């Protein structure tokens, strides 16, 4: 080809109809409105002398005064902090040990264990608490069996240490993932050097490996502590009988108290909790480099294990298996059994008490049936919408020259630090103050969906960002140079390459949204019930059987969806999200 045939005039690419800056501004505004929006009416409500739905009202600090004057509130803080501290210690210690056993020792079945250990965080948290109660609670199946038949005491899970154990077993995967990621990333030649210098494996573990884990442990501890403070199901279901009140259950009870509901001081308490959670988030950001937050987990398989367990290989594996059986499998089996029998008791063989009544309730009772339907709709629509929206926001944050892009990662991670009930209260006030749109959202399931989506949106970002970071920026620059605008480049080049992460994010959000409950407890009304909120309220009213059946529905959906996700796209490997 010569210069003459090469040179040809092509039409110049046309500018797109919607300019990129407009799209970017709208995305940013929507992110900020959805995430920061609900906190403004919350703070406002905490500074008024009467609820926002009543006319009039003046600014006042009374709600705070009232709250601070209530000794029950301070006692609740004490309980909450003690519980959170104990949960954190247990979860972090356990998670770190399992991580070391799975990635630095030749534990039997280590690959399988490093997958199974993730289950508790993915299974429905409220359902798991119910499972614990059915099996290990006062009068629970195994509790009675141990005390009546074997005369052996079990740990009372309706005490603070017991509740901490339940919470720790749920959050242990976070510590595991964070430590495992750190161990995978760590330069193993540091350990090899110590061995060459003559140190025995255990010495290496103590002098090199564990000190290397310190940042990961601190990071996991802060996150687990934040999440424990926000726990609602545990104090409501386990604490009530012994009158142990946490801040979250204090706020819940004050809000729902039929005799004297006090939205003002509930909002004030929520603001305090929010402040504590925000402080912890800021602390965590200081502990971590910006990038280190996002680690994808993938094991180095070929390497020889540092620690040879020899005779301990199988016994330790057995201990770990027993742990998983008693904290995860047994509660689920208990729930399953409970849903099929009239009463669950070791005194009568279960098959003599078989009934399908509880499952029939799910189909016949309008509350139960509509909860399942609503949750399914919310989870599908919410997961799709959130994934799409977060994908767009992530592109604006990391692949545009939008002036405020640097604010987006922090804003998008913020709901992770916020207790679910606070998001619920915030949206309650926000809907109340936004006229017709608010009324529509308040009266339909979409209001709950928005709250669930905002609550779980950080997960989508945490899943998508590392994949996006691995897509070279020259690929989209090449698209721009070829004449495509920002949005067209994103659509035809970046998003197709992001597909695995988008799918993983959808699966995770679906599971999290269908199992979520605490933002909804302040938003549900007849007709807009969702599974988690129904389980909570019906369990408190004593409907143990049907609630167990409902929990089984949640567990089944979760397991099936995760299995599909794992099969199609190996989500197990991206499970790193919870550690972030």
């Amino acid at each position, binding site marked *: 080809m010569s210069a003459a045939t*090469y040179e040809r005039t*092509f039409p110049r*690419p046309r500018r797109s109809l919607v300019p990129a800056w407009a799209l970017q501004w709208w995305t940013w505004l929507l992110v900020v409105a959805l995430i920061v929006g609900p906190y403004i009416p919350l703070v406002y409500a905490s500074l008024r002398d009467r609820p926002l739905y009543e006319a009039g009202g003046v600014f006042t600090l009374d709600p705070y005064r009232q709250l601070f004057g209530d000794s029950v509130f301070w006692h609740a803080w004490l309980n909450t902090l003690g519980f959170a501290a104990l949960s954190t210690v247990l979860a972090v210690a356990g998670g770190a040990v399992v991580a070391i056993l799975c990635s630095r020792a030749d534990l039997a079945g280590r690959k399988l264990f490093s997958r199974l250990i993730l289950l508790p965080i993915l299974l429905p948290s409220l359902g798991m608490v119910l499972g614990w109660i059915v099996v290990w609670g006062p009068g629970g199946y195994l509790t009675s069996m141990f005390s009546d038949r074997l005369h052996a005491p079990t740990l009372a899970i309706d005490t603070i240490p017991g509740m901490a154990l339940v919470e720790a077993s749920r959050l242990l995967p976070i510590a595991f993932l964070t430590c495992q990621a750190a161990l995978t990333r760590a330069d193993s030649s540091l350990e090899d050097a110590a061995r060459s210098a003559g140190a025995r494996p255990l010495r290496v573990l103590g002098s090199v490996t564990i000190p290397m884990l310190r940042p990961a442990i601190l990071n996991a501890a802060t996150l687990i502590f934040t999440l424990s403070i926000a726990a609602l199901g545990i104090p409501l279901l386990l604490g009530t009988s012994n009158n142990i009140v946490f801040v979250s259950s204090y706020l819940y009870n004050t809000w729902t108290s039929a005799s004297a509901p006090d939205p003002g001081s509930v909002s004030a308490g929520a603001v305090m909790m929010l402040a504590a959670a925000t402080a912890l988030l800021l602390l965590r950001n200081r502990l971590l480099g910006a990038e280190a937050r996002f680690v994808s987990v993938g094991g180095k398989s070929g390497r020889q294990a540092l620690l040879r367990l020899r005779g301990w290989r199988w016994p330790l594996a057995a201990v770990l298996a027993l742990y998983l059986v008693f904290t995860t499998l047994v509660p689920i089996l208990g729930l399953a059994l409970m849903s099929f029998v009239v009463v669950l008791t070791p005194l009568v063989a279960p098959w003599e008490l078989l009934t399908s009544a509880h499952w029939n309730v799910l189909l016949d009772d309008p509350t139960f049936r509509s909860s399942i339907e609503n949750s399914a709709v919310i989870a599908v629509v919410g997961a799709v919408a959130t994934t799409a929206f977060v994908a767009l926001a992530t592109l604006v944050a990391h692949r545009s020259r939008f002036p405020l892009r640097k604010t987006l990662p922090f804003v998008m991670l913020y709901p992770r630090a916020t207790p679910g009930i606070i998001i619920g209260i915030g949206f309650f006030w926000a809907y109340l103050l936004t006229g017709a749109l608010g009324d529509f959202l308040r009266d339909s399931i979409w209001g709950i969906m928005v709250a669930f989506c905002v609550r779980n949106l950080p997960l989508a970002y945490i899943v998508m960002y590392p994949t996006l970071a691995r897509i070279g920026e020259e690929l989209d*620059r090449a698209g*721009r140079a*070829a004449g495509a605008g920002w949005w067209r480049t994103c659509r035809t080049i970046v998003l197709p390459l992001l597909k695995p992460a988008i799918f993983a994010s959808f699966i995770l959000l679906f599971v999290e949204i269908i199992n979520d409950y605490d933002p909804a407890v302040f938003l549900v009304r007849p007709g807009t019930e969702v599974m988690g909120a129904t389980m909570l309220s019906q369990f408190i009213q004593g409907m143990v059987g049907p609630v167990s059946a409902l929990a089984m529905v949640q567990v089944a959906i979760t397991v099936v969806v995760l299995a599909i996700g794992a099969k199609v796209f190996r989500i197990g490997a991206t499970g790193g999200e919870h550690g972030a």
Partner: protein
Amino acid sequence: MPEIRVEGLVKEFGDQRALDDVSFSVEDGELFTLLGPSGCGKSTTLMSIAGFQTPEQGRIAVGEETFFDAARRLAVPAEQRNLGIVFQSYAVWPHMTVFDNLAFPLRVRKLKRDAIRTRVREVLELVEMAQYERRYPHQLSGGQQQRVALARALVYSPAVLLLDEPFSNLDAKLRERARAWVKELQHRLGLTTIFVTHDQDEALSMSDRVAVMSAGEVQQIGAPEDVYRRPANRFVAEFVGRVNLIEGVAAADGGVVVVDVTGSQHRLTVRGADGASGNVTVAVRPEAVTVLPAEDASANGTNTWEADVGTVAFLGDHYEYEVTIGSLALTVQSSRRVEGERVRVHIPPDACTVVG
């Protein structure tokens, strides 16, 4: 094809000046190279021309069209500049076939299906990749991916071609072939090209003109021979090729300049350095110096001295001598092997350049 004019670009990252008053212009059909070590601002300059960086000051124009003018707050978006770019990583889109990679810019330009098909075929043939049309990038070798990247940059017949270190990911053998091939193509199509590299061999062998950059500033612009033989300053002398630097005090003496070499009795005669005086540094390329046996009496006169041989290294096509003339140490390259611990060296006055 048009001329490119870059005027007074300034770009700061924090308090770091990445570009400090960068100006040059590229002639129609010329292959112009930005050469310099990493962090010198060459890539920032290229990305400013492409529209991926926005400088704080300056002006960029291609032909009649102004792409960027800080004073007028004008910055044409990258996708409207109609430039062809080959990136260091090639940036061939991994989820598209070779055909789709090339078709993309044409689809953006709303060409008809048939026209796209014909043009993609044409350009693939130009880069000798026609038979790989249906392959995906991961099924191609590095060299083939590079051809696809180049074809994609050329398919819409852009006004200007920008090459960002396109050869640095190829192995040594392939790199040499790729250089010759790109140069030939550029010349045949008469493409106005800006080429960024840190490799001086690449710059010297391919360019019509070279701009040597350091610390955000253009140090020298000239034909490869000029830059090599007449470096404008110490940085250029040291960065482009190897060099002996001789310090001394200069004074005019008849038609030449004579330099009293610091710490030595020798006086170095330099030609073509009119007006140099005071403390100077003189640059001499190792291959410009001649080595002769010590007893060779024919070599006598200007800039010819006896020297002690330190080490001799055999490098295949030449020998490299480390010699000392009194306290003056020199590196000398020669295709001749001269035996003995003492030799005579001659530095031609023409081969000396005062660089500061």
